[in-house]
């Protein structure tokens, strides 16, 4: 069993630190006091030393992102902190657990971040389906307000309306402004012209929560965790064909084998591991033979994939890779915002071609076309959504070409009726259903 130092979930003992007294008793709000005793730039410097990088998927250094936000004396506009709590990447469900279990640590991080970028306004854009999470945050915020912890800062909880694209930072800003959720072209970057064309830092829930811990532990101490270039811990969302799925906070650099077998109990029913998606549905798939790849930024890039949002999906030998492609591609097709051509058209086309292959109606030309369409999407879209589909699908063909080939040559799915995608990334139809189940507060 690997060592499991807890930073994000420190002091929870597997439960929730969701009462303000308990959090305070556990040493809560000390990081905020510590930060407020520092100069804002020193807080940013502290973050740079910690090596903390964005947990939303892009892995951009958090301190550097804040340093890009102009000082109020350089740009006399309101400054905004926007927290991206629109967690929607299939295979990723860490932010909801963070909000439920350590809401105060998260909100404390918001206040520290706002202090660092000299902002008086915090907007938390929370996924619309996160009903309970919203309530927890609302109550936590109320408790903090009663204790006069907010100071001059306004914290707004804004609920999304069910669009994956609003997790893309510029689309999120558009949506927050009350407009259609579609990405903006960059530059200008949000740091310069973000919310209401004013300087804005956009950070993920886990990043912000970790900020509290960094201040508490001290940057140097925090940086001892993890590995080079990927310091600290990560909340891995483990799902799919694994005995004990769930969120596990572990230091960067543990291997997939340790996570899946030592922590997650391995593949159930004695079945064979077939593949692993290491960082949410948008990352390239790995084969069972790559089980010893460490879960850190550099190692996964070396393996041709990405740590993404650290949503690890375990896939056993019952899964048809073409069907998996359809499931993933349908998701991106369904969530494409429709703004740019390659994504709007390409994601749908990919699904159609994959379906044709799965149905056994395809020829070799269709496989070539599939890869060509992936290639024509890749790097040509306005935002990473289209790329995600292309990267995922192309990686399935790359790693499991024989299986695709078998579909074409035999005219049927080699796994026949035995294929199962049960528990592997929710099908897009399931996303649609959520919309109507939401009970409005």
């Amino acid at each position, binding site marked *: 069993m690997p060592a499991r130092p807890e930073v994000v979930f420190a002091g929870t003992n597997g439960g929730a630190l969701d009462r303000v007294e308990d959090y305070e008793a556990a040493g809560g709000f000390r990081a905020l006091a510590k930060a407020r005793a520092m100069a804002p730039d020193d807080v940013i410097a502290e973050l740079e030393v910690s090596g903390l990088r964005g947990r939303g998927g892009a892995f951009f250094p958090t301190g550097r992102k804040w340093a890009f936000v102009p000082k109020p004396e350089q740009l006399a506009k309101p400054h905004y902190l926007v927290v991206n709590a629109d967690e929607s990447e299939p295979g990723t469900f860490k932010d909801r657990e963070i909000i439920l279990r350590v809401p105060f640590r998260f909100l404390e991080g918001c206040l520290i971040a706002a202090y660092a970028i000299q902002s008086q306004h915090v907007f938390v854009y929370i996924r619309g389906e996160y009903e309970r999470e919203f309530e927890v945050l609302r109550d936590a915020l109320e408790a903090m307000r009663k204790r006069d912890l907010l100071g001059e800062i306004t914290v707004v909880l804004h609920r999304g309306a069910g669009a994956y694209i609003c997790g893309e930072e510029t689309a999120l800003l558009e949506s927050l402004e009350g407009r259609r959720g579609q990405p903006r072209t960059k530059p200008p970057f949000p740091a310069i012209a973000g919310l209401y064309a004013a300087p804005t830092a956009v950070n993920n829930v886990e990043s912000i929560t970790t900020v509290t811990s960094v201040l508490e532990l001290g940057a140097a101490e925090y940086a001892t965790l993890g590995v080079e270039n990927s310091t600290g811990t990560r909340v891995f969302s483990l799902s799919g064909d694994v005995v004990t799925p769930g969120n596990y906070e572990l230091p960067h650099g543990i291997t997939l084998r340790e996570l899946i077998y030592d922590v997650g109990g391995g593949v159930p029913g004695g079945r064979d591991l077939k593949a692993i998606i290491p960082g949410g549905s948008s990352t390239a798939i790995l084969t069972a033979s790559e089980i010893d790849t460490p879960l850190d930024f550099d190692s996964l890039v070396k393996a041709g994939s990405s740590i993404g949002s650290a949503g690890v999906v375990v896939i056993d030998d019952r899964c048809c890779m073409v069907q998996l492609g359809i499931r993933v591609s349908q998701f991106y097709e369904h969530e494409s*915002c429709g703004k740019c051509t390659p994504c709007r058209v390409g994601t749908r086309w990919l699904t159609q071609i994959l379906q044709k292959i799965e149905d056994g109606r395809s020829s070799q030309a269709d496989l070539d076309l599939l890869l060509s369409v992936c290639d024509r999407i890749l790097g040509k879209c306005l935002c990473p959504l289209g790329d995600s589909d292309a990267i995922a699908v192309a990686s399935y063909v790359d790693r499991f070409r024989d299986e695709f080939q078998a579909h074409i040559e035999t005219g049927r799915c080699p796994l026949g009726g035995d294929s199962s995608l049960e528990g592997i990334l929710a099908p897009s139809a399931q996303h649609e259903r959520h919309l109507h189940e939401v009970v409005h507060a």
Partner: protein
Amino acid sequence: MPDLVTLTVDDRQVEVPKGTGLVEAAQAAAIEIPVFCYEPRLGPPVGACRMCLVEIEGMPKLQAGCTLTAQDGMVVRTAATSASAAEGQESTLEFILVNHPLDCPVCDKGGECPLQDLTFRYGPGSTRMSFSKLTFDKPIPVSPLIALDRERCILCYRCTRFSEDVAEDGLLIARNRGAQSEIATFEDEPYRSPFSGNVIELCPVGALTSTLYRFEARPWDIQNVPTVCTGCSVGCNVSATIREGKVKRILSRNHPEIDRGWLCDKGRFTYPHLRATDRITTPLRRGPKGLEEITWDGALDSAEAMLREAEGGIVTALSGSETSEIAYALGRLLREGLGAHSAVLPEATSDALDAFRLPLSAIAEAELLVVVGDDPVVERAPIVDLWIKEAGRRGADVVTCSPTGTVQTQPGGGAELCRELSEPRNRLGRRLRRAARAVLIWSGPGGGGGARIAELAHDLGFDGKPGCGAFHLPATPNARGAAEAWSVAADQDEIDVDHVKLLVVSGDDAAAAPSVRSLAERADAVIVMTMFHELAGGWADLILPATAALERDGTTMNLEGRIQRLRRAVLSPCPDELTWISKLAERFDVDISPHAAGVFAKLAERLFRDLSLDEIGLHAPLPPRHAYETPAAATTPAPTPLPTPTDVHFVGELRLQRYQPLFSGPAVDRVPELSFQRPPREVELSAADANRRGIASGDAVLVRSNGTSVELRASVNRKLVDGVARVAAEHAADLHPSVEVLKS
């Protein structure tokens, strides 16, 4: 000199001003970066279509060229020299064509379609798409004027950006997501905006088409004639599309200082009135059985006889809608030939504003804009409204002083407001004095043709400030040109006519003016030149068929004082005015050219400092400013302005504000597709006035004045000043200036 940057595009070095967009920079090197969604007039680039993908040295991925600005030392490769850019552009076209129907042979856009053109230049030769294309219900009537084909739509968002960021009506929207995204109107209501037609021209494919032009012509059997719109005093530059001698559509023709390529729906969609079934094409003379058709020779004989008989008692009612050449020719005939110097014009004119002249485009640059007058700008000069909106988007402070403005005034309160602004202690006046780029606009009746706002500009010290200026929005397109042309047609002063023996009414604006009608009642005989029966059929003794602006050669002077050229787009169904005026003048020994160019040459000699038609060209230049002179009493026999209804003294509960909506007049009346744009039958009341009377929006009410009443719907206008009942002229019937509004 602006800072320059040097970049390389396809191995060609080019120097452009700093901040130039990459598309324009490439253009400067004669290199095309193809685009669909990019349209700088719509605001910042959106990078949606991905047609403009280019390779930039030092950047790992292809970049959307339209979203970049030229940087010093930038090395750009387009499809011409970069295989990956070529592949990128082919990819985009392949994706667009996956769902775009290949119905070019029956598509209105076919032959003048950017998608078609770029597909030929950059697209794949064949398709790899083997699935069914996406289908949508079509065509969708976005409004009675515009049909939407969602299958052809490539989602460039030009139309929605126009609606949101230029016209600011927010009525066109994109809805749904991904492949199911579609253009729609908000709540599926008709797209009712004075500027709706622009989206047809903006559409780079055949998705938004004009219901009036649909299936009427193909691009290879039309000619486009460059002319000028006379729908209002702006004088937007337009092209008239002609097929087989008929006007089939009107397109904008970008004059960057006047219209920037936008056109209002009145200018765009009223051309069908040329072929209205009730158009008069043969002269009519009142006989024992009413008006009877006569020959042109007979008409000229009658006119000659009437003129000779009335000598010494002739008054001419000019129109602001005729060309300067017609006014001049009439002046020569009536003044030189008959000594009939008296003329009236439905509105006042003035040259005082020449001292504060600016191009209309300068409005967008203003930091402070003050609009004074009773009428919303959009009703009088719609394109000016777009310039004002742009100024607002750029951060200008726009202050509207009107019955519905940000500063509320009573109807007719403009003059008083100008007096207040000119006082040294007035706060807004002080800001106007301080500003480097302040613009004043008079929008409404009673402005003395611009004299009043010019006086204010002078008082505020605008004389020596090149960034400050003032505009007056006349009610008609060429009132000043007509008045000045009439004035210089002869030298003698005006003689007072106490008994009007003959009234000569020239043009529809004059014929429709109530003040001209009452003058006609006092005249022994009336000659009217008009296009339509209804305007003068009841009171004219001789009707001579008039031509429409699209059938005329000549010049007009717009509200900036810019002289622009009309070109005959189609032949008129009757001889044009200059032809018969010239013939009639011969009988009075007056020599007038039957051709507009000939008349213009004389006019230019006397009025326009020998300006030539070549100098006017396709995009007329703006004359320089003149020094401001305090207006003296007119010495030349300029046409007398007739009183406007708001000049009438008022006593009572509510003051009737009768306004002339943009969508009104004989031409609009004859285009049924435009009727949805007309104001509803309603009376607008302030919230307080409505409350006091227990009236809510939508209630049926009776608008009553001494002895007459009209039934209308109430509409509570929260911006309207108290004490006013606002009704479109066409629904106000014979109501008096003081009215009462009661729930019926």
